[in-house]
């Protein structure tokens, strides 16, 4: 049983190339990459099923680190069913889920519950992360060994910073002995507490409590010092400011096992988008200045920032329909990740291979998954998309249960046409109508 995808522009982030060609898929893996299929009719005949990609772009499926599915605890905001459908429609073939649920995923039993729910319901791959400390409270480390055995692919307290440096250094030391990845959202919580925007002229005019971008650098420098001390495997996620980048550069140059991530909103939006207190633009960390945004885009282009994620955070209408300071933070992004990222491609800031290096290859590598590549033997997790298809975003059409997207009513360019997980189509032909 083989499937042949012909007439596509193949994006290979590993080789850094975009070439015309076809892919042969069998038993869930890519079995052959056929560059420029002109005159390859002989090979086509051998396939059971042939899909003509119509000259569209075919890339390795997105591996999205840091998706919040609100199970357990807040299924009214997002479930594995709705998040899975959103992921498939967004070209996300692997969701790496966050443990900042209610209660936090901090023990093997809860993790197994999540893994089972995901297996039963979600059409895409789901890899759960676990909290680093119990209840994400920053006092005692979780059962890292048991959780690893239960399938936790990384450990993170998400937006809760482990303020006690002794607790953090011990957790990192223990994690290193098990060879597991720890993810931090660097921040100096003393400075950022209560802040809902970035300090500057805009924050001053709006009269909103604000945090200096320097709080991120302080948090990152601290974390990197502890990584240097413990030898831990560390991913600094959700970076957003230019001020933090030199520290990251130094740590990488010094050979620490460190990678870094940015979420799509900090690459495509800035603080001014908040306008007259629009709470759908309230994210954590807050949107930054345009200077910071462009610095983050350049850092992705240069490879200093390794991974782009959606930081998908569903919030219901009630928690967003409040005065800005009280409103919940976060935005849904599984379905908008790729079209938003394509803005950077349309703007000429990133080429396709670089984009998918950050969306697919690097996160996959960091987690040791083997996906994210278009080579023979790699899992056939793929996204076929038309980067030019224009539309106006209508949030009511999102598959996520929560509709809190900052891109509502905005012009977007780029639509996913088909998504494959292990060679099986999980989105495509006819399903687009809903989008």
């Amino acid at each position, binding site marked *: 049983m083989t499937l042949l995808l012909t007439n596509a522009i193949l994006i290979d982030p590993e080789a850094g190339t975009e070439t015309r060609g076809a892919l042969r898929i069998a038993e869930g893996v890519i079995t052959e990459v056929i560059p420029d299929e002109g005159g390859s009719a002989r090979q086509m005949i051998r396939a059971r099923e042939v899909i003509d990609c119509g000259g569209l772009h075919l890339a390795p499926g997105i591996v999205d680190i840091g998706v919040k599915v609100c199970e357990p605890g807040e299924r009214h905001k997002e479930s594995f069913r709705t998040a899975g459908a959103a992921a498939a429609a967004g070209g996300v073939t692997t969701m790496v889920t966050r443990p900042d649920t209610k209660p936090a995923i901090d023990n093997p039993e809860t993790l197994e519950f999540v893994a089972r729910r995901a297996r039963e319901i979600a059409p895409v791959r789901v890899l759960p992360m676990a909290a680093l400390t119990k209840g994400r409270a920053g006092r005692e480390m979780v059962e890292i060994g048991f959780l690893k055995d239960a399938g936790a692919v990384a450990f993170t307290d998400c937006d809760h910073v482990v303020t006690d440096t002794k607790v953090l250094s011990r957790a990192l030391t223990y994690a290193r002995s098990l060879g597991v990845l720890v993810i931090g959202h660097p921040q100096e919580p003393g400075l950022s507490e209560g802040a809902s925007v970035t*300090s*500057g*002229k805009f*924050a*001053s*005019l*709006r*009269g*909103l409590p*604000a945090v*200096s971008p320097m709080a991120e650098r302080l948090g990152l420098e601290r974390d990197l010092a502890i990584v240097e001390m413990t030898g831990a495997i560390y991913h600094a996620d959700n970076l957003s400011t230019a001020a933090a980048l030199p520290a990251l550069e130094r740590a990488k140059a010094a050979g620490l096992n460190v990678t870094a991530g940015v979420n799509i909103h900090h690459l495509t939006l800035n603080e001014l988008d908040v306008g*007259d*207190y629009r709470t759908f633009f309230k994210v954590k960390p807050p949107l930054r200045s345009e200077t910071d945004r462009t610095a983050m885009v350049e850092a992705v282009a240069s490879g200093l920032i390794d991974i782009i994620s959606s930081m998908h955070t569903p919030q219901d209408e*009630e928690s967003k*329909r*409040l*005065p*800005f*300071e*009280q409103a919940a933070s976060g935005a849904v992004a599984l379905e908008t990740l790729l079209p938003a990222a394509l803005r950077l491609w349309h703007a000429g800031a990133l080429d396709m291979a670089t984009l998918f290096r950050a969306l697919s290859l690097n996160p996959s590598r960091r987690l040791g998954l083997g996906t994210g590549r278009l080579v023979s033997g790699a899992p056939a997790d793929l996204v076929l998309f038309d980067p030019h298809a224009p539309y106006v975003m209508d949030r009511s059409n999102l598959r996520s249960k929560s509709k809190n997207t900052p891109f509502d009513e905005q012009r977007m360019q780029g639509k996913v046409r088909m998504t494959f997980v292990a060679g099986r189509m999980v989105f495509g032909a006819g399903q687009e109508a809903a989008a």
Partner: protein
Amino acid sequence: MFAHRHLLGIEGLARSDIEAILDLAEIYADLNRRPDKHADALKGLTQINMFFEASTRTQASFELAGKRLGADVMNMSVAQSSVKKGETLIDTALTLNAMHPDLLVIRHPSSGAAHLLAQKVNCAVLNAGDGRHEHPTQALLDALTIRRAKGTLHRLNVAICGDIAHSRVARSNILLLGRMENRVRLVGPPTLMPARAAELGVEVYDDMAEGLDGVDVVMMLRLQKERMDGGFIPSEREYFHRYGLDAEKLAYAKPDAIVMHPGPMNRGVEIDGTIADDINRSVIQEQVEMGVAVRMAAMDLLARNLREARAGA
């Protein structure tokens, strides 16, 4: 002319809007000094004052302004009502909206609350102070007071002194005075100055002698009690010593400079009592008087637009 549905802040107002309100307020200021203080600009309309924060003078001022123009005025002190039971601002607003108010006056501790409300109700919303954001009628009454005292509202040097960072009065005044082409100085300790204050089109000083040098207007701000101890400034007495307005510091200003304060005052903290009571320098009582007139004018103009919109609909 004044073509706005709501009065949410000074930010959206053009110079002509500001002048329209002030000119009409002059007429109401005269009316307010007559034995019969009644007009009927708001006759038949319902005005609801929603105060989510304790306030005596602003609420009284809006209430009186509405009553003098013939509106049915209702006061909701929401600070001690259903909000305590978990009802959100929007729920409260929708409940009130169902009672068909025409003018909704809101004060709320969160910046942006008035904007949020304006999106959800179909009447005119007046911002009576939202968090640290804006307090437009205060800036307008200050402007009217300055214009009457100085004979002009252009090319004056105005020093706004004290806790700028937490002050909605300061923000609205910075915007209004800037739009009317005055030179605005902010004077205060750097811990009470907003980030990048200089980008707001003002001059920033942390020394009263320099900041007050040659100014026409000295506008003092209230320092909240909870900010006095250690967090932002070392102590109340050091603050009064360095930033409190007394005769010595006022001497740096022009000899005919006026002294303003939005109230309520902390005598002996940001202002010396004798300065506040000096009828030759202080216009603090006049500010209160102009407050009623400015609020009458603002509500009158919004009501005209409301009636026009409804007639057209």
